[in-house]
């Protein structure tokens, strides 16, 4: 019983991070129908920024949160302007390989700069601390990350559904052609979607670095988890990404407890089953 509650709490906390990771992917897909294979690499960059700041500048990794988010925003916009904009007109295969190339480039750039060594953030206010609530004890950093994820989600939700900019973004995602005729700068909206996508995922990376190791190849796994999350929640749905993230977190923690060697296989299988049997996911349209 204790174990079960502990697992569920862990699952939900991990799940909230998965939700934040998946948010950007879902947003980019919703606005312009393109899948970003380099998503996990944006996350990795956020993780390395947190690692660098806490190791070389003796600063708390918490300081890196806004810096990572800003770097992610710039990386997202840069990727859109320099690469994605040029592959949009090409066939689907070219789009796929374009972002795939971006993924390889960022991954091996990190390999070149940081070597394949496994690193982790060692110092920080929250690193290694645990909170106990009765007989449940959880990492303080995971609780904090979950709170930040909730706040980030609320902020993005407010931006998309309550502001004029958000309305323009939604209009672009529903019908880009029509939105253009209404005077919406659709290219700017695409660029903004990549910026927000990059910022949220890099923020998630800086949070994740508190309790997860960093290597140049860490990105692929999280890209796949994000794909599974987005597929389950429904491509393009923000609420869907939120709820699906928690479900995926629970699946991973529970299956990891049962057969730890195959815990990621369960996530891949979830993706497969969802896209085959319910392609619009839980909340897609």
């Amino acid at each position, binding site marked *: 019983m204790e174990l079960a509650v502990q697992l569920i709490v862990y699952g939900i906390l991990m799940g909230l991070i998965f939700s934040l990771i998946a948010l950007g992917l879902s947003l980019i897909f919703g606005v312009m129908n*393109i*899948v970003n294979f380099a998503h996990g690499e944006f996350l990795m960059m956020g993780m390395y920024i947190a690692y660098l700041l806490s190791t070389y500048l003796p600063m708390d990794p918490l300081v890196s949160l806004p810096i990572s988010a800003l770097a992610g925003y710039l990386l997202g916009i840069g990727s859109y302007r320099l*690469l994605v904009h*040029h*592959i949009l007109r*090409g*066939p*689907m*295969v*070219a*789009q*796929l*390989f*374009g972002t*795939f*190339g*971006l*993924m*390889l*480039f960022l*991954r*091996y*750039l*990190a*390999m*070149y700069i940081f*070597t*394949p060594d496994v690193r982790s953030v060692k110092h920080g206010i929250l690193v290694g601390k645990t909170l106990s609530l009765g007989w449940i004890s959880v990492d303080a950093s995971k609780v904090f990350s979950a709170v930040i994820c909730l706040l980030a989600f609320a902020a993005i939700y407010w931006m998309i559904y309550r502001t004029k900019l958000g309305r323009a973004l939604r209009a672009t995602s529903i019908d880009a052609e029509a939105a253009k005729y209404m005077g919406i700068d659709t290219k700017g909206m695409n660029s903004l979607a990549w910026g927000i996508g990059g910022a949220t995922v890099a923020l998630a990376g800086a949070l994740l670095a508190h309790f997860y190791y960093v290597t*140049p190849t860490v990105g*692929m796994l999280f890209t*796949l988890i994000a*794909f*599974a999350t987005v*597929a389950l929640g429904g491509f393009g749905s923000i609420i869907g990404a939120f709820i699906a993230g928690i479900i995926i977190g629970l699946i991973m923690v529970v299956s990891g407890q049962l*057969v730890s*060697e*195959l815990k*990621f*296989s369960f996530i*891949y*299988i979830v*993706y*497969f089953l969802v*896209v*085959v*049997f319910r*392609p619009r996911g839980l909340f897609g349209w």
Partner: protein
Amino acid sequence: MQQFLSDLFSFKDRPRFERIGFFIFLILVLIFPWIVTSAYGRAVMIKFLLFALFGLGWNLIGGYGGQVDLGQAKNVGFGAYATALMIVWWKVPFWITIIPGMIIAAAESFMVAYPMFRLKGHYFAIATLCVALVWKELFIFWDWTGGARGVELPIRSGADFVYMQFNSPIYYHYFVFFLFLLQFFFMNWFRKSKLGYEVQAVRDNEDAAASLGINVYRTKVINYTITGGLGALGGSFMAVYYLYIDPDAVMPLDLSILIAMTVMVGGAGSIWGPLIGAGLLIPLDMYLGAWLGAQKRLGVDFMIYAVIMMVIAAKEPKGIWGIIERVIKRRSTPLLQKGS
């Protein structure tokens, strides 16, 4: 029968410069081990032929079929494991182990293809990736496959034509060249066969193909099944060439990506594409990778790959072969038409 043979070996429908080019290529590969005597150079050549073999198989689904499959490594793994385990357990001759390897890979592909071809585009690509990764985790998890430790083949001395194990790379060179030619002529037959035309019609326009009476779903499933079987052939070769296999060597994600990338860079959907792509990327990988690795510059070779890939995706989705074809066409167009 005569028609079949001529379809197999004839390149009459291709322009003359292509036929001459291919003939020169064959001669060069035939005499290669007698010109290049360094062990490394020969190893590069064998790896090039191996990846050209993989590329030819992947071209079926990725080039002619237009479906991006990022999980070809699982089929390579099936072939490699079938060969290695059958030789270790029952001492089955190599040539017989090829067949179950290909059948297992094809059967698995068929079963997976059935639900998977309800998907298109990105969804399909990610699904293939997921399936390959699940298989890899299973092969690491299971005991009977040797788990993460892998399988080691018994070493035999001299030249053994039953188990295809040799001391000299010259034998391996002609061995893989033979497999390559088998598959190359099969592909040459395939692209002119009824199924080949159906597959290409489905790629170009599914609705139009369906309206002509082609069963789109069935065509895709058959195509994917054949691709799976062909992938296993190269895997069987890897088992007897490296004499040691584990899931990280024969079924990693990087292998799937490299196979797809060689074809995309060379030119998907052309019979020469895999040759050009493998001919560019494999030497680049082996020489540049070795040189940069010696200087402790890990990853630079893959960064160069990535840049090539992004430029190809943005500028010329038909790959290097697309560029060559355009240059030739411009040259051979009569002057009168040039202005129009």
